[in-house]
Structures are given as C-alpha cells and as structure tokens.
C-alpha cells in the first residue's frame, strides 16, 4: 500500500501551527474554567474551609500589603507631578485632586494593584501548588480522603477574590494621599481646591467601576494562578514554566478585561 504524502507550503505550516495553538488555548481556557468553577462549587461542601480561607487571606493579602502601599504611594506622587505640569499650562491646577483621584480610582488602582498582586501572590500560588504536585503532596491529600481542589485551590481562589478589592482600596487611599502631599505641600496647590474638586468630580459610579474591576481581576488571578499550578508538568522546569506563564497570562488578561470593563463603565 502506498503512502500519500502531502508537501505543505510555508503559509500552510504557519496556519497549521496557529490552528493547533488556538485549539490548545481554547482547551486550556475550558479546562481552567471547569477547574475553577468546580473548586468554587465546593465552597459550601463539608468540611467547611473557613480556617483555610482566613489563613490564605492573611498570607496573600497581608503579604502583599507592603508592595501595594509602596506602589500606590509612588503612583500618586508621579500622577500629582505629571498632572500639575499639564494642568499648569491651562491654569487649572485646582483640578489636580480630581485628576489624581479619578485616574487612580477608575484605572491605575485596579490595574497596577492587580499587577502587583500577580507578581507577589499569584506567582507564589502557582509555584506552591506546582511544587505540591511535584512532591506528590496533592496525591497524598487524595489518598487521605481530602479533596485537594477544596483544600488547596478553593481557599486560594476565594482569598484572592477578597484580597484584591481590599488591597486596591488601600492602593487608592495611599495614592490619593501621596498625590495630596506632592500637590499641596510641595507644589503649592490650594488644599481646599484639591479636596473640593476630588469630592465633587468623583462619583459613586467611578467608585463602583473600580470596585467591579478589582473583583473581576481577583477572580481572574485566582482562577489562572491556581490552574497553572495544578496543571503544571510535575518537574522543576514545568513548575518554573507554569509560574512564568501564570504571571504573563494573568497580566495580559487583566489588560484585556480592563479595556472591556472600561468600555462598559465609561
């Protein structure tokens, strides 16, 4: 029996590869969604994981506090400097408070906060779960009749969903505060004008938009980082690769979803 050989051209090879990676991406998306929702569906199943939610919230939330405060502080300071420089050209320095507040609450707080949490907490979630896979700790849990999806994945996903909005709120407060210090104390903007414009121009709608973004980002980070760790190839290299991918994919997803949500909340 003769074999049929088809010689593929360059574009055909490219399309083939593109198709395969698209299919693999869709497969992973479906798998991550299923795994995440399966873990979340166990939230009310016995045994109740309350203690582990608190432990993870402490580890991920409090552990990320310093980096959030530092990032928030310098973001507010830079925004005040840049904003003052721009507004001074139009003689509108009094609008500095509104500019800094709106930029931070609507956009920079959720996005930069999410990036910092991905780098600090998301990567550690992926690496920790990946190492548990490599060292068969998740199998050991299975054999001790403890569901690793409920014990390992669920508390981390819930902790990130709760931690991101809280940390973003802290980011916002610190950013606006340092913006005030730079704008009022260093650059001489009228303190009354700064605060009055801040309160007058920022509506509940802006606050709500920032809050929704931070909850959605928390959900994304939790699902992606736990998934990448749980499905990591159980080797040292596999865990390293999964950690890098978790950070890259989470960051890109945050940017894409940010655009989509911003277009809804404008």
């Amino acid at each position: 029996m003769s074999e049929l050989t088809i010689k593929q051209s360059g574009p055909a090879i490219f399309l083939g590869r593109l198709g395969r990676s698209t299919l693999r991406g869709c497969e992973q998306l479906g798998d991550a969604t299923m795994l995440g929702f399966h873990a979340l569906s166990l939230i009310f199943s016995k045994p109740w994981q309350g203690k582990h939610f608190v432990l993870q919230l402490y580890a991920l939330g409090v552990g990320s506090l310093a980096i959030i405060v530092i990032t928030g502080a310098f973001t507010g300071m830079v925004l005040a400097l840049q904003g003052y420089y721009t507004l001074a050209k139009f003689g509108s320095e009094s609008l500095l408070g509104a500019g800094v507040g709106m930029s931070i609450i609507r956009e920079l707080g959720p996005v930069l906060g999410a990036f910092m949490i991905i780098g600090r907490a998301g990567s550690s979630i992926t690496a920790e779960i990946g190492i548990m896979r490599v060292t068969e700790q998740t199998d050991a849990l299975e054999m001790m009749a403890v569901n690793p999806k409920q014990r390992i994945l669920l508390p981390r996903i819930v902790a990130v969903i709760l931690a991101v909005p809280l940390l973003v709120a802290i980011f916002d407060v610190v950013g606006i505060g340092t913006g005030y210090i730079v704008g009022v104390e260093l650059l001489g903007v009228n303190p009354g004008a700064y605060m009055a414009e801040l309160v007058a121009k920022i509506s509940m709608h802006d606050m709500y938009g920032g809050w929704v973004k931070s909850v959605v980002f928390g959900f994304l980070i939790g699902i992606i980082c736990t998934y990448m760790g749980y499905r990591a190839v159980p080797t040292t290299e596999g865990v390293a690769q999964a950690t890098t991918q978790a950070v890259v994919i989470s960051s890109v997803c945050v940017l894409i979803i940010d655009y989509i949500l911003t277009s809804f909340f404008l």
Partner: protein
Amino acid sequence: MIRAERLSKLFGDVAALSPTDVHIRSGKITAIMGGSGSGKTTLLRLLAGLEKPSSGHIWYGNEDLCTISDKRLYQLRESMGMLFQYSALLNSLNVYDNVAFPLHEHTDLDEAVIRTMVSMKLEQVGLRGFEHLMPSELSGGMAKRVAFARAIAMDPKIVFFDEPTSGLDPISSGVISTLIKDTSTKNRMTSIVVTHDVPAGLSIADHIILLWQGRIIAEGSPDEIRHSTDERVQQFLEGRPDGPIPFSRSTTSYIDDLTHKPGTVRLES
C-alpha cells in the same frame, strides 16, 4: 477484595500497562515487583484510584472504582493509606501535624487522644520525640518513617506502599519491611507493596506479581517465584545483566552511533 480486569494504561502512544488481570488477596501482603519502567507504580496508582485507566475495571468488593462518584471514592479512601516513594509529607506541617492530619480530618477525637495515637504511631517507627521537626529538617529515611506512621494513622484496611525501602540504609530498610509485615499481620491489613528490592519483597510478601514491560510475567507465592523456571524471573531475582531482559534500552547500533553512520544521532560541537 481488590480485583482488576483487563486493566491498561496508555501515556500518549506508550503502553505503561498492557491489559492485565490482577487479584489482590484480602488481609495479605501482595508485592508488585519488576525492573524500572516495568509499570509497577502505574499499576499501584491505578489500584489506588490516583490514575484513570485507559481501559478495564477495578473492583473493590462489588464497586467499580472507575465509575463510582468522587464522594464515594473519598469515603472508600478513609479506610486506605499510602506511603509514597518520596514520602509526600505536607511541607507546611511538622511531624506531629502530618501524622495527625488524617485523624484531624476524619475523626472528632479529642486532641489528647490524637496526641496519644500519634505518639504510638511514632513510637512504632522509632521517631517519638521528633514531633516538632518540619519535613525539611528530616533525612530521607526519617521522612519515610514519618510517612509510614501517617499511612497507618487511621488503622486502614488497605495500604499501598510505593518503594517503601528505596533510598534507606539497611537498618531503616529492615525496620520498614518488618513494620509492613507486622502491621499487616496484626491488623489483618491488605498491603500492596511496589518494590524492586528482591530480598525485601520475597521476605514480606504472601503473594508476588512480577511485571516486565507492562505485563505480568509471573505470579505466585515467594517460593513459587523463587523456583520459577522462567528465565526472565530468574534473571530479575539474581540481578544478572545478561539474559532475556536486556540491560540496554538503545535500539540503534552502538558502532553506528560511534562512527556517525547516516541515520544516527550526532552530537554537534
């Protein structure tokens, strides 16, 4: 008690286990032996429900492990234990909490009772007084002994042992083998031991299954295995490099590789 029918496992195109029937005797020690890559650990993980088979059934009594719900599987596992090859202790917990873990999870016992039970298990493995140490502070042999104590913490009916003596010094290895034998006999525990430690396997097992290339090539009592006329069995027991089981896994000519003949792999400088 445990019966596998036409059990097979494929990883991609590679058959780690060809369709195999296995019968594990209740209350006895079954040793699954064979060389590296013969499918021992795959068979153990399938029997423990840690892997889904590519085909076949695993019967626990009249329940098929391949079709039961997750909830039922976890119920069954409350009466199982497993000692992993690299111990698999939970890194975030100390020795006491590792051994007490299944007791905390599945019983409402008072902490004082759990403490006593943990002490008894640790005494059995010779590590009482080491409760405060973290897994990173233990040697390989100590970690394995703690993992043994954890595996039997709930006095399970079935215990899976994956290479229980590998990486241990002769004394620890002998202690673990004796512990498996004694615990299984006293508690009427069904033990399934994967090992390539021939003396340990022959000394503790009531029944031996010998695997090669994902197939069972011999099974029976230690005496039946010792007196098997199968050349492969004798080669494995004696550890001879020459015989029907080739030592080298290479499929290309060594001479061709060295002389860089076409079709062979050449290392780039």
